[in-house]
């Protein structure tokens, strides 16, 4: 499978946080979701890809490094980051005029199409937009210069379920030509349950897994049972578990099934929950 992004040993240190030696490849022509709790490193990871922040290691996008081919790469990437940074006093029309100067492939017809689809009024000022409308505007701008790689950081956090569903449909349309790729970071994992092709999870700055979504969902099962059934052997076979006075619940990647236990299909959210390590010092619920 051809890769759109290759990251090798990427490390970025801040005060109290470290994106720790990440190596991963993101395949071309698919939707990849980056998941992890708040502060896990999703935004830092995206910032290193976009060259917004410096880092150790190497990142190749379409086989090229950002430092060497910045103009080409920025034209081929459509990014929407946290609601966008626009001048508050400008209308959407004026803002679009500013944006199109940066992108050689800007297409007014495509942009206006998204504005209509999202119900955005070109005459409105940025400061008059709600959080959800700002996100939609920022997404419309990212999708309107014929980019081959769409990168969105938490695109749906301010959107209602209907708009989130519509956004996922747009992503499916974008990748249907097999040439374009979409990367979305989100902690609203339900957006990814259906249409995402690959899931990358990071936790505490580390890569936990990078797997096809179907494989992830088919190999994992939620296990539930009485506390007495939670033997040391079983504990070792679980990704993690939590125990209460009424029994235990855990996640397993093992195909073994025990008769006294209940097995259920997990959602991506369940998988993320059990793969997330408790921060240091936190007390595990008893």
């Amino acid at each position, binding site marked *: 499978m051809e890769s759109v992004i290759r990251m090798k040993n990427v490390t970025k240190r801040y005060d109290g946080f470290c994106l720790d030696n990440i190596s991963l490849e993101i395949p071309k*022509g*698919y*939707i990849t979701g980056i998941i992890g709790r708040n502060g896990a490193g999703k935004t830092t990871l995206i910032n290193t890809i976009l060259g917004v922040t410096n880092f150790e290691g190497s990142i190749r996008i379409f086989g090229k490094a950002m430092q060497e081919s910045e103009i080409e790469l920025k034209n081929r990437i459509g990014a929407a980051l946290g609601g966008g940074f626009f001048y508050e006093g400008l209308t959407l029309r004026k803002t679009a005029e500013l944006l199109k100067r940066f992108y050689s492939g800007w297409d007014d017809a495509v942009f206006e199409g998204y504005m209509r689809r999202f119900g955005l009024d070109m005459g409105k000022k940025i400061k008059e937009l709600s959080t959800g409308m700002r996100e939609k505007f920022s997404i419309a701008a990212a999708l309107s210069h014929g980019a081959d790689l769409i990168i969105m950081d938490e695109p749906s956090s301010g959107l209602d379920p209907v708009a989130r569903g519509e956004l*996922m*449909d747009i992503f*499916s*349309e974008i*990748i*249907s*030509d*097999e040439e374009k790729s979409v990367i979305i970071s989100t902690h609203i994992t339900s957006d990814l*349950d*259906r*249409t*995402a*092709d690959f899931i990358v999870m990071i936790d505490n700055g580390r890569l936990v897994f990078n797997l*096809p*979504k*179907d494989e992830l969902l*088919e190999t994992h099962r939620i296990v539930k049972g009485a506390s007495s059934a939670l033997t040391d052997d079983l504990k070792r076979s679980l990704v993690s578990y939590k125990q209460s006075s009424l029994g235990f619940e855990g996640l397993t990647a093992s195909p073994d099934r025990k008769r006294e236990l209940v097995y259920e*299909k997990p959602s991506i959210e369940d998988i993320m929950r059990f793969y997330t390590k408790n921060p240091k010092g936190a007390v595990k619920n008893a």
Partner: protein
Amino acid sequence: MNIIISNSSDTPIYSQIAEGIQKSIISGELTEGDSLPSIRALAKELSVSVITTKKAYEVLEAQGYIKTQPGKGSVVSARSSSLAREHRISEMEQHLLAAADIARELGIGAEELAETAKALYSEDLG
């Protein structure tokens, strides 16, 4: 063609898609030479991952129901209808086998089982 996907079902989604297409072949809705939607178009229609529809087509191809030609897409194969019938017959045999097991367990003879089957068969028609 109707493909109905249940997210709560224990059957993986790619199998549900493959079964939906199989059913359309069995019912005669899809016949030899009919073309199927592309992997990506179907994924978009069903709001599922491209990898899921790809796997569904791979399963159907391995079973002989469809043929995929690079650049041309997938079409229903010549032996698909006989395969579909065989598949349903073996499904029926599985159910009969299960019924026979229960009959043996209860001490019911082959004759009596056949009588029950006959009665049920005509009841279903009426």
